């Protein structure tokens, strides 16, 4: 069961630690604005500086997302994206890149509808390394986390500013891969909390876990990314990338803008420490 390419997430964080720099985690929505452009963009991300890729599984009702990622999801669905195409994108990506960790991110219903077991088998075979299911808190994630372990897939847990001392152990218990720290309350794309505050929260969490911690929500600019990269293990950028497709006149322009932004974010992160 354990192929040599497994645990790309753990291996990537080990490499980052050795290089003493934070990783850049990039989010794009699969199929946004269309399948081909999205796949082209995905293929370009590692060379542009993405250390870990989050690929959104589009959903009709993305309740935890702000306007930018909602619109990305809608563009993808209008373009005919579905779970099978998203997994096909991952397979196509793996033909070119067998090193960069890839995490699927989305909501539970499309997985539930396909069936947890078939979904995990397909995702694992496609070369997915982890899952972030936004509306599946620790109280309910066992139904996917347990079978996912058999496929060596990480189910990434999220912590937020509202995750207080009494709740944190529940979140960290059985957490694997990395911890995603959502640095503000609110929906994706909302404004960011101050770096000092985030750093204080991270040191609080680090007392309780050895897991690498990625920080996301509201990080848009190279300057913001540099600040967070001083203390976080990874910096997650999403809405700032999906905005590129929203603003582009043609899909190819959107792809160029995404990769350009990823390059500037990666450069800023590289000089943070």
């Amino acid at each position, binding site marked *: 069961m354990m192929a040599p390419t497994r645990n790309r997430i753990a291996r990537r964080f080990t490499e980052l630690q050795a290089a003493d720099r934070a990783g850049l985690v990039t989010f794009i929505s699969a199929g946004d604005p269309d399948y081909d452009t999205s796949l082209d963009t995905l293929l370009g991300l590692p060379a542009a500086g993405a250390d870990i890729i989050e690929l959104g599984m589009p959903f009709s009702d993305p*309740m935890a997302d702000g306007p930018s990622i909602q619109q990305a999801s809608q563009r993808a669905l209008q373009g005919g994206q579905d779970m099978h195409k998203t997994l096909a994108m991952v397979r196509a990506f793996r033909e070119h890149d067998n090193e960069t960790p890839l995490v699927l991110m989305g909501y*539970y219903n499309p997985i539930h*509808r396909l069936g947890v077991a078939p979904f995990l088998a397909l995702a694992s075979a496609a070369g997915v390394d982890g899952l972030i299911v936004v509306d599946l808190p620790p*109280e*309910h994630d066992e139904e996917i986390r347990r079978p996912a372990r058999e496929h060596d897939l990480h189910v990434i847990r999220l912590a937020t500013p509202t995750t207080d001392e009494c709740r944190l152990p529940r979140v960290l218990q059985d957490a694997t891969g990395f911890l995603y720290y959502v640095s503000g309350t609110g*929906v994706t794309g909302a404004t960011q909390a101050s770096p000092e505050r985030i750093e204080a929260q991270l040191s609080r969490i680090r007392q309780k876990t050895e897991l690498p911690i990625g920080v996301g929500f509201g990080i848009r600019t190279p300057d913001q990314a540099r600040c967070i990269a001083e203390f976080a293990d990874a910096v997650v950028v999403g809405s700032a990338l999906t905005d590129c497709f929203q603003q582009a006149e043609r899909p190819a322009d959107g792809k160029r803008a995404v990769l350009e932004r990823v390059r500037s974010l990666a450069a800023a992160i590289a000089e943070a420490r």
Partner: protein
Amino acid sequence: MGFSTPRHDPVPDANGCFGHFGGRFVAETLMPLTLDLQAQYAAVKDSASFRAELAALQRDFVGRQSPLYFAERLTERLQGATIYLKREDLMHTGAHKINNCLGQLLLARHMGKRRIIAETGAGMHGVATATVAARFGMDCTVYMGSADIDRQRPNVERMQLLGAEIVPVSHGTGTLKDAMNEAMRDWTTNVASTFYVIGTVAGPHPYPSLVRDFQSVIGQEVREQMLEREGRPPDSLLACIGGGSNAMGLFHPFVHEPDVRLIGVEAAGQGLETGRHAASLQGGAPGVLHGNRTYLLQSEEGQIVDAHSISAGLDYPGIGPEHAWLHETGRGEYVAVTDDEAVDAFHTLCRLEGIIPALESSHAIAHAIKLAPTLPRSHRMVINLSGRGDKDMASVADYMTAKPNDRGTQ
């Protein structure tokens, strides 16, 4: 066997599950809030002072108890079961929605929250929330789909009159589910200050049981009124179902009495076979949305699809998880009636009883019109007349214009 008839097991369980439905499928940001809400509700719900305050306002502000009315001419016409109507349409703001709003706003006040948010579809829950918020001097923001704002203009004006801010939601399809998404986003953003008043028996735990509890005053009164009048409980209970709060409120006190038939009536819209309906149990599949696992209208790919009903209040692609559980265990009977049948029933009740029912409630009447003739006069049927139909004048008029020849002949 996985399922047994619901007896006196505690439902929902500690995770808010009714069988495998319900739960708390929300983003981590909201988890601590739902846990806090659950703890605060548990602490307050049986306290004498909370209950006394709620009871006084139910009586003096809402107008409870609502009458149980013997529908004499409808009973005569149908030549079958003896039919009673539970007159929630006579309550303040014109529907059962206020029972829940009053309870939740008292709870919000107890928790020290000053800002209230709500979603609304037809506008009745929005109006009820705005009404109680005005009564308590709280800030109130109501999310409403832009398509619904166009369909339900009088209720928008009522909410504004009551001091609520209406936020149009044009994402998605601009209907109730999108309004609920946006309210959840607001709640996620303003976690510390804000109390989210969900309008039906859905959402993350504890909402389905909390809303049910505040609505179960309906069923409790029916029990007392039937015992007083007939010396025994009713034989069947009928209610319409969108999310299912008026039905759950009526059913709940009788769930453990297997002799009482619990009949929920979904909206079949233009017909179940057309795909243009709002019948989540009969035309949907289990899934996860808005914080709970339940039956949903969805595509093969798990994308949520639009509900369709002439009644905006039933126009929701999900259903409360406790109904999903009552359906799967067989304790509840769930049927569906079409727009045509509901409009016929609307006219029938207007002409026979001098009562203009809400189009939502007309669905329950429509099923009673089919069912009652098959039952003996000794069968006591109670239909929840969950709201009044003044708000539906335009919808019915439009419908009659489109289909002038075969309506209103009752």
